[in-house]
């Protein structure tokens, strides 16, 4: 069974049709990229999947369940986690605390006044595990707001990962980053995909990243789906080349 089925979703803002009857199916373990020029409706499409906005029409099925009308946190509980184009972290808390909070919430301790020593140890171990996975261990006691853009993004991805999601949604994970940072984040995503078989959908601007990482690519243009396929198929697609890659190919 498919993990995520987006069926004919449409989102209108007044007269503007941001997303127009787009469908997409993501299989378990798949890394799907959504690309398209600015204003193609990528972020809106993403917001519809994560519940940040409600579709005007269409249906979203996650793991066999219709989640179209669920709030963001209800979707989180069902295993959907996301990151944002503009990094959303807890800037005045340390890296450790950022991850610790995510781990505690994921463990269902959000209303706990106290934890047993065993629970404390488990939270600590899991937090350390996430720190090491993201190579942020050395910066654990730094405030997140003081870190580089790339490290903040890594921290945000690990917070999402702390929730043990079955689907991770990444909105432009390398936006605004230098070459080294882009490379580091790409490596992190690849590692999660390869080692943990984590299913992901990511929006991306950087074509190197997309063609490098994605199993399949969907191209959006002006709210419509232009093409869908493997990186090779997309690179060879003429409609895509004229609409989007045209300038770069020429």
């Amino acid at each position: 069974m498919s993990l995520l089925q987006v069926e004919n979703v449409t989102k209108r803002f007044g007269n503007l049709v941001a997303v127009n009857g787009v469908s997409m199916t993501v299989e378990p373990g798949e890394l799907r990229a959504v690309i398209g020029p600015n204003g193609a409706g990528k972020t809106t499409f993403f917001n519809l999947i994560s519940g940040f906005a409600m579709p005007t029409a269409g249906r979203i099925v996650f793991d066999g369940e219709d989640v179209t009308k669920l709030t963001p946190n209800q979707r989180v509980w069902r295993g959907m986690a996301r990151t944002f184009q503009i990094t959303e972290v807890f800037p005045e808390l340390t890296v450790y605390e950022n991850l610790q909070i995510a781990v505690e919430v994921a463990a269902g301790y959000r209303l706990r006044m106290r934890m047993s020593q065993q629970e404390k140890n488990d939270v600590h171990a899991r937090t350390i595990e996430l720190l090491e996975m993201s190579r942020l261990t050395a910066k654990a006691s730094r405030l997140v707001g003081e870190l580089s853009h790339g490290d903040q993004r890594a921290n945000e991805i690990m917070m999402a990962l702390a929730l043990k999601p079955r689907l991770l949604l990444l909105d432009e994970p390398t936006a605004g980053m230098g070459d080294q940072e882009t490379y580091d984040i790409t490596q992190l995503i690849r590692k999660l995909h390869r080692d943990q078989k984590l299913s992901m959908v990511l929006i991306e601007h950087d074509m190197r990243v997309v063609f490098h990482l994605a199993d399949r690519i969907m191209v959006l243009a002006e709210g419509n789906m232009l093409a869908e396929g493997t990186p090779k198929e997309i690179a060879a697609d003429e409609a895509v080349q004229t609409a989007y890659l045209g300038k770069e190919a020429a």
Partner: protein
Amino acid sequence: MKYDDRPLQKYAADAAIWLLLLSLPWWIGHVGGYMQLGTQVVVMALAATALNFLLGYTGVLSFGHAAYFGLGVYGTGLIIKYIVPSTLAGMAVGVLAAVAAAAIIGLLIVHLRGIYFAMVTIAFGQVFYFIAFRWNNVTGGDDGLSDWSRQPIDFGFAKLDILHSPVLFYYFVLFFFAVSVAIMAWLLRSPFGRTLLAIRENERRARFLGLPVDRHIWLSWLISCTFVGLAGTLYALLNDFADPHTLYWEQSGVFVIMAVLGGMRSFWGPLIGAAVYVVLQDYVSSMTQNWMSFIGLFFVLVVLFFPRGVLGIVRRRAAS
């Protein structure tokens, strides 16, 4: 590896503060103060710390905490005057009144944010003020509720005469302060407390961690109002009087000023702010009617030059 170790200075600071508070009756007279002033500092410190639970640790600004403070005040006064001359019964009813009102009003307003939340808290607060102000034959209206006093507490084996001994009453107040502050500090170091920090830091991220943000804000609001209500009951006992101005929105502003003055990101900030405010008020108002303009000026200077409050300055010194 451990990251949650508190530095030793913090324990030293805690110890110093408790030592100062516990020994207050011995030194307050020597520095030009008096027992009642010391008690007032502790009562206001409790209210400001409770407000700061919401403001500094959840990131939610309330300009209506006077309502719950005043409900504590009037609950205590009305019970002791009309129903039963028992200090503890008065306090219990005062706190329950604050909790009940906060629970219901909280449900209506927790979905609001920022300035809208602050405005609505003022509006609800003023409702209680006008009730106390208008309902002359019960509340005493503008004159307040007088002709009652706190009662000695009889434990059977011992009698605590808080009525005639200002020092005993100070320790009575300090006991409630200590218990309340300990509970708040303990909550803030728990997983629940950390969810409040998360909401303060970034509500969107908190929501996308799966937190029901409004419910957590409601809980924080309720905890905050409970301890403000408790402070109100102690304030009524301190003065043996229920003053309608304790319900007025200006009083809410005073709590906010105390928290910001002392430093709202530090747990002890509101205590420092309350001490500065109460002492300054006492001192300046003995010299001029316009004491509020001096406090206002002082507040503006602190906010402009030391946005992290008095404790923020101390910390910066310590760090450099």
